[in-house]
Each structure stands twice: as structure tokens, then as C-alpha cells.
């Protein structure tokens, strides 16, 4: 079976106003089949959101150069016109954002913000769309949806708003749902409820999901596969169990070592010293070398090759497979 999503050599370069460049995403590769949930992890600033926005075609055209290949049902999304891309977005591609407090328009009711999507993509009239909007709000377990549908976002709590965002994203039964840290801004109990929602979506539909998260606990619970990103590239890709049991990239090992701090963003890694490299230029060798406890001469000359470890498991490290090299 061919993959639903096939991303190859995705690259995003930002051009600043003062001529500076920023290689936010470099050679990102992954495939995603229907019904599979892929977790995307990595520390802040490594390019997770930019990858998601590039797939959705939502990066600013003026400042972002996107190249490579983003296959969706066999079509290269990067080659589509703006109009064709708009037809897909909100319909077969959907995205939930990290910021529930600001992602809804304060000037329109929750209902209106769902209805307009249905009218746009499903050609419903407003009455039909409204009825469907109420159903969707019920599906995401918003209490008394008949009333909520006419309320403005400021009346809802963060958790409720994020559910409303989920309802908008699910309005047209997308094939691919990208959830960019959907729970980071929420408190723990609400997080669990929203995650439940995504899990039940997984069961009910055959959609592929990309779940971006800082939280390895969340990834372990929900995802089938995991891609670990570092400095704009995927350094390790593995089935979820394999990643936790036999991580094959020193960066992944470092990330896992910081698991006890589940409740926090993995912004400062307990075991990895230093920070992300300057991405105004593409580094020569392994990007992780300055922070890697295993780094040696061969790591810095040229980019490390991809080492295939097992079924759907690979690592971008010259020393992989790492046997008993855990620090």
C-alpha cells in the first residue's frame, strides 16, 4: 500500500528583512500511512511547527522558501496552485494549533467558525451546517452544544476552545490531521481529555495523524511511530516501542533521559549540554556533534549517512547501530 503522506527532502529557508537566512528545516523525510499516528518530537526551535506549516502550505510566501516533495495521495502539494491548496486545506488536510486562546476569531461565534468551513467545503446551506456544527460540538464533548454554538470564544475556557478547534479541524473528516502541541497550553486534566478525543478520532476514522509534542509521555501513549527532530532534520525515526526500548541516536537517548520531567517542556535537556546550532548556515557534519558525548573526528567532516536499524527504524548517526553505548 502506498503511503498517504510522503515527505521527501523537505527544506524551508527563511529570508529575513535584513538579508539574513535561516535554515529552519533541512532534508526532512518521512512516510505516513492511513490510520497511523506519527509523533514529532524535539526541543523548542528545532523546526516541528515549520514542518507542519510547510505541509499545510501555510508559511508566508514572501519570506519562506519551501522546496522538496510533499506527497499527499500521490500529488505533490508543493506543486499545487494556491487555489488547489485552499480546496484541500480544511477539507482533507486539517491542523490544530498550539494556542487555543488566540486561534479562534474573537469576533465570531464558535458556531459561525465551524459553519463557514462546512459551507466552504461541503456546499451545505447555513441551516444544515449549523445542525452539523452542533453535532460536531457534541462529538468533541462540549456540554450543551445547542447553546455553545452561539457563544463567542471569550466565554469558553482554554480546554473548551481547544475542543472547538478540534471540532473545526474534524468538520470535513480530514485524511490528514496535524496537531501541533494541542495540549501544551492546557492543564493536566484537560490535556487528558483532549488526548482522549484524539485517540477516539484515531479509532473512528482512518485518518493519518501527525502529533507534535514536547511530551514524550503523550507520544508514548498515542503514537504508532515517532520522528525525532534536531536542528531542522529528522535524526531518528522508529516505531514507538523500538524508540523507547532501543533508541539509536545519541540525541534520542538524551531526550529519553529527560523523561522524568514529563510535566515540562523539554526545553533544557537534563543530560544534553549546550543548545541548537546556529542555523543561518547549514552545518558541515553532524549537527549534534557539538553536544554529542560520542562525537569523534568522523562525525564532523560530512553529514552522517542514514543507518537502517530494523523495520521502519533508522537513525542519522555514523555510529548507529549503537549497541551497548548508553552513557
Amino acid at each position: 500500500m502506498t503511503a498517504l503522506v510522503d515527505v521527501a527532502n523537505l527544506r524551508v529557508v527563511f529570508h529575513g528583512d535584513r538579508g539574513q537566512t535561516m535554515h529552519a528545516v533541512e532534508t526532512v523525510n518521512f512516510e505516513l500511512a492511513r490510520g497511523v499516528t506519527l509523533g514529532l518530537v524535539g526541543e523548542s526551535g528545532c523546526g516541528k511547527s515549520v514542518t507542519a506549516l510547510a505541509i499545510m502550505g501555510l508559511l508566508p510566501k514572501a519570506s519562506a522558501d519551501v522546496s522538496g516533495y510533499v506527497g499527499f495521495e500521490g500529488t505533490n502539494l508543493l506543486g499545487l496552485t494556491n487555489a488547489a491548496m485552499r480546496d484541500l486545506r480544511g477539507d482533507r488536510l486539517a491542523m490544530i494549533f498550539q494556542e487555543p486562546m488566540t486561534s479562534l476569531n474573537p469576533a465570531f461565534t464558535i458556531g459561525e467558525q465551524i459553519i463557514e468551513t462546512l459551507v466552504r467545503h461541503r456546499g451545505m446551506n447555513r441551516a444544515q451546517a449549523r445542525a452539523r456544527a452542533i453535532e460536531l460540538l457534541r462529538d468533541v464533548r462540549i456540554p450543551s452544544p445547542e447553546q455553545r454554538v452561539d457563544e463567542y470564544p471569550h466565554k469558553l475556557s482554554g480546554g473548551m476552545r481547544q475542543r472547538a478547534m478540534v471540532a473545526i479541524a474534524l468538520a470535513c473528516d480530514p485524511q490528514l490531521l496535524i496537531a501541533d502541541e494541542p495540549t501544551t497550553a492546557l492543564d493536566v486534566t484537560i490535556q487528558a481529555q483532549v488526548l482522549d478525543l484524539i485517540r477516539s478520532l484515531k479509532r473512528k476514522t482512518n485518518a493519518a495523524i501527525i502529533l507534535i509534542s514536547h511530551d514524550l509521555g503523550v507520544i508514548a501513549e498515542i503514537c504508532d511511530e515517532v520522528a525525532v527532530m534536531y536542528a531542522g532534520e529528522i535524526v531518528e525515526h522508529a516505531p514507538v516501542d523500538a524508540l523507547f526500548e532501543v533508541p539509536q541516536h545519541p540525541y534520542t537517548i538524551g531526550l529519553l533521559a529527560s523523561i522524568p520531567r514529563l510535566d515540562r517542556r523539554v526545553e533544557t535537556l537534563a543530560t544534553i549540554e549546550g543548545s541548537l546550532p546556529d542555523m543561518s548556515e547549514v552545518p558541515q557534519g553532524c549537527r549534534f556533534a557539538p553536544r554529542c558525548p560520542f562525537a569523534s573526528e568522523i562525525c564532523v567532516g560530512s553529514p552522517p549517512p542514514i543507518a537502517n536499524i530494523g523495520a521502519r527504524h533508522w537513525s542519522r548517526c555514523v555510529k548507529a547501530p549503537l549497541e551497548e553505548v548508553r552513557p
Partner: protein
Amino acid sequence: MLSLLGKRLLQLIPTLFFVSVIIFSLQQLLPGDPALIMAGEERDPAVIEQIRQQYHLDRPFPVQYVYWVQGVLSGNLGESMRIHVPVLDLILQKLPVTIQLGSMAIVIALVIGISAGIISAIKKNTFWDYAANAFALWGISTPNFWLGIMLIFLFSVKLGWLPASGYVPLTEDWRASLASTIMPAFVLGNAIAAILMRHTRSAMLQVLESDYVRTARAKGLYERTVIFKHAMRNALTPVITLGAIEFGTLLSGAVLTEQIFTIPGFGKLIIDAVFNRDYAVVQGVVLVTATVYIVLNLLADIAYVLVNPRLRN
């Protein structure tokens, strides 16, 4: 909503009281004895004394104020000391002219300012953006009298399309009326358009970067829906409020422009009254202008609440 309206109306009372006290006090500070001025050539002390009594000028200041307010509340703004016409009549005669001019100016300002602002925001850093910004700079820095004279020179003297001066009431001949006001309205509107354009541009740029606009795009909405529904609704609210306040300024601040185009509006009334020391007229005009200004502010506030669901309860 109703309770909000009630509250704002109640707040008007102290504001208006304050304004009226100031207007009345300023009057007292002006040099010259009003009774003497009213008496004119008459130097008979008995006559002057009689005028004093008639206008309560012999009573203490607060009492005079109370008499004055009583008069104002019953629609009596006094009488022009020079031409002996009730001030209210003078005002009612000139106000429609100024309102017509102000309305035309504000419509011109809103249309030009908002469209130029939106275009320059969505075409940021392109020719259109630079052109709109140059226009705004020009609009802000061009003195009204200069622009007025240039327009008269071009459209009246050179081309002969529009009358150089004078005013025809709307009720008389609406075409001639528009022809007689379009140039001064453009002069007044132009400067405000520039201000509104700058505000629209920065508000739009900010809103276009917002998360909810990104959400709207993520839903695959057409770009026109994104801009004219999601972005504009939020960006234009403060701009409209600003427009209402500028409209208030127009009603009192068209002095110079009315003078250039010899439009017999409020501006001309104020000038004449000040030069002639016609205190009752000055007082009445200032009071009406201040009231209109305050009411417009109130309306702008209410409109702001109406389009802003967060403030509605």
C-alpha cells in the same frame, strides 16, 4: 446593552456640567463689560443698569450660571448682541451646512483611508504599499489652505468645472450643492484619510499575523473571506472609532477651510462672533460643538461595544 446605554448617558451629565461651567467661566474672564457692549452708543447709566438687571449681570456668578443653564435647557441660548437674532436660530441655520460638509469629508476620508490602508497592508513592501504611504505622508503634511487654493486654481480657475466659492443648500439644488462642497470636503477628508490609512495599515498588518487569521487560512477559506471577514472585522473597529472622533473635530475645526471656500458654516460663525466679541454666540457655538463632540464619542463607544462581543456583557 440597555443598561450600558443608560450608564453612558448618566456619565454624560457630569461631563456636560463640567463643560458648561468652563464655557461659562471663560466668558467671565474675557475683558470688557458685556452690559457696556450691549448698550452700544447709549451711555445712559440707567439704561446700562437696566441691561444689567435684564441679563442678571448684577447677580453673583453662580446665580448667573444657573440662569444661563436654565435658559440653555429651555432652548434659549441668548441673543446675538450685535445683530439681535437668537443664537439658537443662528446655530440652526449654520449647523446643517457644517454637518453636510463634515459628513462628505468623513465619507471621503473613510473610503480613501480604509481602502488605501487595506491595500498597503496586503501588498506590504510593494509599489502599492509605498504609493499609499507616500500619499499618507502627503496628506498629513499638506496644509489645508494650500490644498484648497490649489484645488480652486485647478478646478475652478483652469478647468472651470466647480464653483470657487459659495454654498448652495442641499434642499435647493442637490447637484449644485455637491458641486459647491466637494472641494472643501476633499480638503478636509484628505488629511483625515491619511491618518485613517496609517491606522488601518498597522491594524491590518497586526491582525494578518494573528493566530486566528492563520486558523482561517488553515480552514481553506478564500483569501477574500480571510481578509474582508476575519481580518477586517477586528482591524477596523478601532479605525471606525477614530473616524467618529475625527468627525467631531471636523464639526468644530473646519474654520480655515470654510473661510477659504466662503462656506457659511460653523467655522465662519465662530470667527465672526469672536472678532465681534459677540459673547452669547461664542458661548452657544462652543456649547453646541462640545455637546456634539461628546455625543459622537459616546456613539463611537457604543459602536465599539456593539461590534466587540467581549465587551457586550
